[in-house]
């Protein structure tokens, strides 16, 4: 094995940048309802952050610190999307009929809560899971 170079700067910058990227992606995700963004792009930027971690550290240590099975994550995402659609049917609505309402929450004040956000969570999880699955399985492949 080739001796590893000492990537101190890369590691330090990555640690800082990853936090910013994750924050930004969560912002994109939440903004989606009213501003550009949403589940898809939010998921993709989260995935980009994780890929950055993979790039600067090695796959094993990231797996150890983020013990997530991304295949399952993708599957859970799809399932969430389907079940939010099914949930509406229990209330006599059509499949995938979304609803929203305004609630007075203790900390946030008057807040809009929409079932569409749950659906978006599914989208985001599916996107993150799929993207990371593809990238890690290709990179782990010994050619």
């Amino acid at each position, binding site marked *: 094995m080739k001796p590893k170079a000492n990537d101190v700067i890369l590691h330090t910058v990555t640690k800082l940048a990853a936090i910013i990227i994750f924050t930004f992606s969560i912002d994109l995700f939440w903004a989606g309802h009213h501003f550009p*963004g949403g589940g898809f*792009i939010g998921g993709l930027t989260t995935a980009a952050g994780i890929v950055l971690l993979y790039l600067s550290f090695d796959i094993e240590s990231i797996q150890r610190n983020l013990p997530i099975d991304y295949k399952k994550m993708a599957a859970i995402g799809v399932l969430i*999307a*389907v079940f939010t659609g099914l949930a509406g049917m229990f209330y006599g609505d059509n499949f995938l009929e979304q609803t929203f309402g305004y609630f007075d929450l203790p900390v946030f004040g008057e807040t809009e809560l929409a079932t569409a956000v749950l659906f978006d969570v599914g989208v985001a999880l599916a*996107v993150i899971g799929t993207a990371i*699955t593809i990238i890690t399985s290709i990179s782990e492949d010994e050619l």
Partner: protein
Amino acid sequence: MSFLHFLILLPFLACIFIPFIYKKLNIHLGWIVVFVPLFIFINYLLFIPSISKGNYHAFSMPWIPSLGINFDIYMDGLALLFGLIISGVGTLVVVYSIFYMDKNREALHNFYIYLLLFMGAMLGLVSSDHVLVLYTLWELTSVSSFLLIAYWYERKKSRAGALKAMIITVFGGLAMLAGLIILSIIADTYSIREMIANVGIIKESSLFIPALILILIGAFTKSAQFPFSIWLPDAMEAPTPVSAYLHSATMVKAGIYLVARMTPIFGGSATWFWLVSGIGLVTLMYGSFRAVRQTDLKALLAFSTISQLGLIMSLLGVGSAALYYTNGEAQTFYAFALFAALFHLFNHATFKGALFMVVGIIDHETGTRDIRRLGGLMAIMPATFTIALIGSLAMAGLPPFNGFLSKEMFFTGMLRATEVNMFSLEWLTSIFPVVAWVASVFTFIYCFILLVKPFLGELNQSRLPKEKVHEAPIGMLIPPIILGLLVVFVFFFPNLIGKYLLNPALYATLSAEVPAFEIIAWHGFGTELWMTIGVIVFGLLLFFSIKRWTIIFRVFPDQLSINSLYMSGLENMEKKSVSLTDRYMTGNIRHYLLYIFIVTFSVLIIALVGFDGISFDFSTNSYITIYDIGIVIAMVAAAFTTLLTTNRITAIVSLGAVGYIMVMLFVIFRAPDLALTQMVVETATTALFLLCFYHLPKLGKRIEKMKFKLTNLIVSILVGVTVTIMTLVATGHRLFTPINEFFENAYELAGAKNIVNAILVDFRGFDTMLEIAVLFIAGIGVYTLIKLRPKGDDSQ
């Protein structure tokens, strides 16, 4: 379901039980099976009294009532005549097969199931009034005949014969189906009786001739008429009981039956007259001519069957002229030919069945059917010889056998054909008696060959495969003896069957009143008698000088026979389709893409031009800004770089450039969500492209100039132009107001200010759900492709 239905379905019922009882039997299965045709035969006999009075019996059984398809049975003289032949000869054939087929060595259950299937199909076919049921059973006779011909399926020739019979008869059957469908569309009914009642409408229809020709193709293929006769000699690979039953007495007469049944509909038209009588005569001549040179007894009988079927067919053709005349006298004049056809049909079933059984006996006892090896069997097999004598003299048309009567009537019919004056080409009919006479001379010759070669002369034991040749067992002789007795009986009492069977059948065929005909054995020194005497004299002369004139057969080389035409035709068809498929199915994806693109733009352009759709309307277009122009120029430049570069990595990067310029386009056109997504996706795909590039195998790493093909250039330009035109035309012609106003209510309806996202997750959430499913499947696909590779195969 009536009793008659039960009778017709009885063979099928019996088929179901055979496999269950077969293994438990100690006696020959045939002893059980024989009761089926016997029972049917006896019950059919009981119909004679009422049907000979001119009655008919009609029964209906619903099959698919919603489509008007019912198993309608119509029992009249014609159906009864055929039904009696089928069940009667069927009984005798089953008895014969008990002694012919070895109990221990043969798969008897298969044999009898196929035979019963055939019998039931044939019985239903001749009694069916519904054309589609008739067709169904017609095909069932083809299928069961196929199974029977290939009964000894381990023999190559059996399989080849079965295949050929199948191809030709199914070809005809399908043509017939088309004809029957056309006919039922014209007449607006499926019932043959109702078609006959509406014959006026049918005759006036423009589809009359197509229906006629298609139905005749069916009849001709089944009845082995010229040029479809080639399957019959090859069908002789079947066991002899099958040949005797199917290929002489019953199935080959299905076509005859169809022609007779359709005569009231099509008869009286010139096309029908010329086709049926002309093809019949050609077949008669061809069959008798070819039969003379055969050395295999069964092949000889096969060609003689072809010839005799041609005879019957030509009489049916001449007889159809009866329907042209409304005047009773002229009608009777030609109806006599139909009567002769039916009479000969009956006679042929008797003597040909007997002759096949005789040949089977010879084969069974000596081990060969080759007339060059046989000889002198008369003394050893006196009973077989007597039957052969009766059968072949009846076929040759000599007294005192039934063939004499029908041959005389055949000559009468052909002589009367010369007086047909209602169709053009009158001169042609004067050839009819000549052809008939010449063919009869040949018939006489081959009948004598059949009689003389195996039975007279010296017995040469060394040439025979079997050691001790002796007379057949009595059980094998009984069926041909019965048929032989019938041959003689009919000569002496022809009017018995004439009155009870043939006249009702004639009435059914003609569907018009004609006075009943009497068959007279002796009718003075008429032209017909002199013709018969001429046949005998010339036949004997030619028979004894046969070695001198067989040279003429060499004039017709085998390469020109219909059989070799058929074989080379099949071979060529196979070769041509293989080469055609090889030519366009190259296995090269580039070629398939070319086909797809060419078809796509051709269809689009043809549709655009054909519907006069090329018109542009730019009035609603918005203004073009300087940014738009800049972006388009940049994009075109990047696209051309991708196309023209010789370096793979340049292509990847310039493709990425196209993607990022697209992001700018989205920004300019105010689509932030699209721009964001496009940017991330473009990054990901470019990374993946680079990954692919990095992993390309070293050996195949050839950075070469893209193979520039002119066709590719032209096709790609045409596709681009087509799509551009389509887009321009489509944007200029907005048929409806867009529905985007509805989505502008996103905040009220979905509580979202981001319209795009509201559409994605709320208004059209279903699409999104399936898209993430697609994404998920793609991820799992990549994962399985990489992880689940077969171990130890790293080269690919």
